[in-house]
């Protein structure tokens, strides 16, 4: 019914696009969106396309929120977030990643990590500034950069380097207009992580060229063998880094919209200005839940990480057995196999896999430079679904091989 109505309304509307801000008009709808439309509506599809945990938020976290609602905790909080939550975040970052932030003026609770990234970019960009973005990467960085008037500059990373950023790769893209470097390790979509040794040469380049770093560490808790090293923990980097993180991935809290940003007081106070005029404060229910997650949620988190790790082993083995080359992802919950050997582009591969074998995955090309020839497969899904999906991928790759032989 509703669809009909909107369609009729749509027919009557004249085009309003000429009113749109040119910056917004230039933004392309994301490639993920297109695949979403292709997959939508079908029930029998197995999805390896989701960028969120398959767990529900731990029960005690949900319960703490419900209880706070019962007690009437439903108002605004202070702009930067409840002081208890900011203290919780500070002590968590200290214990887990050896970072020291003052909860009074170095931390803001935000509407997801998403808002934190947006705030950081808006607080920093002057028109024409170049923003360096190692790719393949999370799909939002480049569009928000453009909306903010900046110029996204992709830095290609490669399968042969296990998608780690190298100092040479970074240096090669630096110009006098370079201002910000956006980092995302553990990486969506490649699962790459960076060790302290990997970071050291990067930090030198950052220092040399006086860059500001936005470090999106939302997957920091999700590493498998090899712990997460925060970029901000490197000598001299704390002041020039805005750390962005959140609760979505580590605590299975995507819908709560709770994240945070930490950094130098001058940067945080600028971000806070934008934050208070745009959203006032992060949702209070989410803040209560986030505090409970930090305080009592580590055991549940470990259990979830254990489970992702099991499925990571399963998917990597399965993809390799299906005949796809696949490096071992060290973080997040994505495998990023190469489909280059099949002779299809990643878009063709993903489309046919979806249409003919009912498995949804995201073509690597949507993640920017270096993504073509790969497929992002999320393993945040049940073992039985993964097994079935891997079987179907195996059948598809075998079919492609036959097709190529018949042609030859």
């Amino acid at each position, binding site marked *: 019914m509703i669809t009909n109505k909107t369609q009729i309304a749509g027919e009557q509307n004249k085009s309003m696009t000429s009113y749109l801000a040119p910056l917004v008009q230039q933004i392309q709808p994301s490639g993920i969106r297109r695949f979403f439309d292709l997959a939508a509506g079908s029930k029998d599809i197995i999805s390896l396309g*989701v960028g969120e945990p398959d767990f*529900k938020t731990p029960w005690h976290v949900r319960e703490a929120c419900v209880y706070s609602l019962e007690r009437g905790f439903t108002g605004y909080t202070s702009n930067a977030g409840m002081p208890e939550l900011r203290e919780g975040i500070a002590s968590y970052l200290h214990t887990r990643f050896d970072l020291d932030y003052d909860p009074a003026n170095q931390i803001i609770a935000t509407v997801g990590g998403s808002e934190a990234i947006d705030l950081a970019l808006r607080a920093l960009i002057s028109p024409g500034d170049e923003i360096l973005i190692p790719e393949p990467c999370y799909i939002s960085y480049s569009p928000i950069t453009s909306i903010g008037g900046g110029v996204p500059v992709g830095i290609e990373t490669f399968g042969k380097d296990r998608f780690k950023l190298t100092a040479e790769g970074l240096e090669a893209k630096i110009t006098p207009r370079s201002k910000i470097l956006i980092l995302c390790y553990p990486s969506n979509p490649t699962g790459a992580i960076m060790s302290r040794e990997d970071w050291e040469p990067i930090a030198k380049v950052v220092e040399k060229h006086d860059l500001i770093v936005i470090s999106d560490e939302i997957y920091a808790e999700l590493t498998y063998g090899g712990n997460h090293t925060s970029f901000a923990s490197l000598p001299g980097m704390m002041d020039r880094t805005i750390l962005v993180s959140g609760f979505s991935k580590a605590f299975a809290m995507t819908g709560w919209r709770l994240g945070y940003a930490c950094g130098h007081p001058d940067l945080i106070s600028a971000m806070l200005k934008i934050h208070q005029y745009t959203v006032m404060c992060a949702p209070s229910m989410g803040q209560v839940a986030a505090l409970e997650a930090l305080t009592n949620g580590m055991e549940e988190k470990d259990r979830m990480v254990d489970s992702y790790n099991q*499925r990571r082993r399963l998917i990597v083995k399965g993809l390799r057995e299906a005949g796809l080359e696949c490096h071992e992802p060290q973080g997040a919950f994505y495998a990023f196999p190469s489909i280059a050997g099949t002779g299809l582009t990643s878009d063709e591969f993903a489309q046919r896999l979806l249409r003919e074998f009912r498995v949804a995955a995201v073509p690597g090309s949507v993640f920017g430079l270096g993504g073509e020839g790969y497929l992002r497969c999320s393993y945040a899904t*049940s073992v039985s679904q993964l*097994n079935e999906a891997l079987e179907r991928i195996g059948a598809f790759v075998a079919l492609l091989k036959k097709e190529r032989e018949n042609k030859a």
Partner: protein
Amino acid sequence: MEQMDELKRKVLELLKEDARRTPALMATLLGADEEEVKTAIAQMEQEHVIVKYATVVNWDKVDDERVTALIEVQITPERGRGFEGIAERIYLYPQVKSVYLMSGAYDLLVEVEGRNLREVANFVSEKLSPIDAVLSTKTNFTLKKYKQDGIIFEDHEEDNRLMISP
């Protein structure tokens, strides 16, 4: 040794989730050797750590008459043997599905299954109550099972995530 214990514990967790998982699958999930997993399972079967591989059934969905009662039983313990002998007398009856020694207002909790109320009632009056040591029984019939062995029968927590998301 400790490593083996860790592996065993993980194997048990995986089997509790789904008893039909193969050693090969579990070895992949745990990053362990398949032979090691097989050995661990064999040992645990031998030691009766793994007692049985069972299926959790929601009988309400099957057209099959069946009633369950939880019976609270008070007992005079036997000299020297305590509750063991009487517990054994009770658990040997095939209609008894489980027997637990409890702290609190009564001693044994006995789960009995029958085709109908009368069958369960007869068991209580003809078999259970006449046992000398049994002082009293209190029969509670279950009306509906919502959750058993950690499994929610009508699971509402389905996966309603989007097919594709960033």
